[in-house]
């Protein structure tokens, strides 16, 4: 096959030139890696979780290494939605990539107000963080019950016409129930999965390594869990699933898409290798050529379960 394969994907009518979106929290507001390559190399960026008012986050240490992963508890440190809209968004919008605002709140009203503010901007999509494990309120508290997840989704749905992606937490008994609940309230897409709640202890001091005691586990360690949940959720809902959780290689990306993901997010792998998103895209192209597949989106959900 001489033609270059088409690795663009479409989620809720939004076209992405390639399937790799920088995951929220791993890529800030897109300013920090531009020494290495332009933001336009990414299909999209999901910006750092942003709240109505600025937040200072948790006391350090906020990160710990784990086998094949990391544990973090940043606690949603961010400059607030006004700064995002007035400063970061205009800069991001000139860089030829899909810009997704990731928003979090301590109350339904917070989410609604932030979504209303974003509705009149040119941000491409909104991702709801209802699954941050690192803040006492405004994180996983919404995402762990169908009622909580549904109520936030409903409030945001009523506040904006932008495509709304709901980011789901894996720290629940049945993630498909939550996915169905947010779909019923008008979510356009779900991103699966946020981090798994974890803990590490320094055995010399008997202190947890994270000052927050617990934090979110990410990286290749959680990849099989993520693949399983993407598969389950994509079978449970009709809206597109954005897959994430430990993707580090092109093979991981292809596997996640076969499980049912229409697009992908990468985070932790970028800390290890900032060029990982670019290498993954190159590897995907190679796979498609080798397997004579013309369009990447043709592989979505093509796993053949036993």
């Amino acid at each position, binding site marked *: 096959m001489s033609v270059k394969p088409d690795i663009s994907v479409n989620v809720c009518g939004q076209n992405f030139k390639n399937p790799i979106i920088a995951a929220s*929290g*791993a*890529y*800030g507001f897109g*300013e*920090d*890696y531009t*020494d*290495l390559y332009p933001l336009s190399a990414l299909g999209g960026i999901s910006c*750092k979780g942003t709240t109505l008012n600025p937040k*200072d*986050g948790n*006391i*350090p*240490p*906020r*990160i*710990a*290494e*784990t086998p*094949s*992963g*990391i544990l*973090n508890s*940043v606690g949603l*440190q961010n400059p607030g939605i006004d700064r995002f809209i007035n400063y970061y968004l205009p800069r991001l919008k000139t860089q030829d990539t899909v810009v997704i605002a990731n928003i979090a709140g301590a109350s339904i009203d917070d989410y609604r107000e932030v979504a209303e503010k974003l509705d009149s901007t040119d941000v491409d999509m909104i991702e709801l963080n209802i699954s941050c494990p690192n803040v006492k309120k405004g994180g996983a508290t919404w995402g762990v019950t169908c009622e909580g997840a549904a109520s936030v989704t409903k409030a945001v749905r009523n506040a904006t016409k932008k495509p709304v992606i709901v980011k789901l937490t894996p720290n629940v008994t049945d993630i498909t129930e939550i996915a169905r609940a947010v779909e019923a309230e008008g979510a356009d897409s779900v991103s699966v999965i946020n981090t798994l709640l974890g803990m590490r202890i320094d055995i010399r001091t008997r202190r947890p390594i994270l000052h927050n005691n617990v934090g979110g586990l990410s*990286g*290749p360690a959680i990849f099989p869990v993520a693949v399983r949940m993407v598969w389950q959720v994509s079978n449970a809902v009709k809206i597109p699933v954005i897959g994430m959780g430990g993707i580090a290689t092109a093979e991981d990306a292809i596997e996640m898409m076969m499980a049912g993901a229409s697009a992908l997010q990468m985070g*932790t792998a*970028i*800390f*290890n*290798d*900032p*060029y990982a998103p670019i290498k993954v895209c190159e590897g995907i192209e190679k796979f498609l050529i080798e397997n004579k597949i013309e369009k990447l989106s043709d592989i979505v959900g093509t796993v053949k379960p036993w």
Partner: protein
Amino acid sequence: MSFFCNSYPVIEKKALAEDIYSYTILCPEVANNASIGQFVQIKAEGYMLRRPISICSVDKEKGTLRLVFEVRGKGTDKITELNKGDLMDVIAPLGKGFTTPAKKEGRVIVVGGGIGTPPMLDIAKQYGENCTAILGFRSFDRVILDKDYASTGAKTIVCTDDGSVGVKGMVTGPLTEELAKGDVACVYACGPTPMLKAVVEAAKAAGVDSEVSLEQRMGCGVGACVVCACTVVRGGKEYVLRVCKDGPVFKGEEVVL
């Protein structure tokens, strides 16, 4: 101010003390862009997080970087498996380094504690005999870089906790004496937090500016993940900044230690 992510050959590896290594890597593009007090993120094969290591010395002519670090755990231990000729994968140079006054007016003092000694060697090189280097260690067998500092022409004072070599006791003793002589333009420090606190207080008491290099567990190292937070006070207001991008060097009078 730009950085690179690349693999560079190790051209020298030396053990300076037990578990403390000195590596020199050939990386002209990095050396050309690096300034005193910046750091690099070294990849440890098999580990997710890179290890932030301060730059000890830059040779722009030779295009080399010297990195001195201590084995603190499995990740840094893995890095020491690299030998001469091997490639070291680094993101560098990163962060904001020390601001050294362009004019050599007055003296400067550098204070290094243990593995906090390396990042100020090039300050000593820049100031030569107009620099006083006060280096503190636990005992004689932990002393590193004292000869490197002395060879710059800097007046070099070694202190050890147990008095097994040099002045017995903390760096703050000699520091206070040196400050009392006057004509000090700035104090630069890197080391354990209690030492940094004492240095900043001593400098403040003498009415001298200070800059300190901080250490914190980092994620990306480039400012994206906001993991390595520290607090500074400016104009009576507190700000949570990133050690990796807003630092690692901060003004002593601003940073909350």
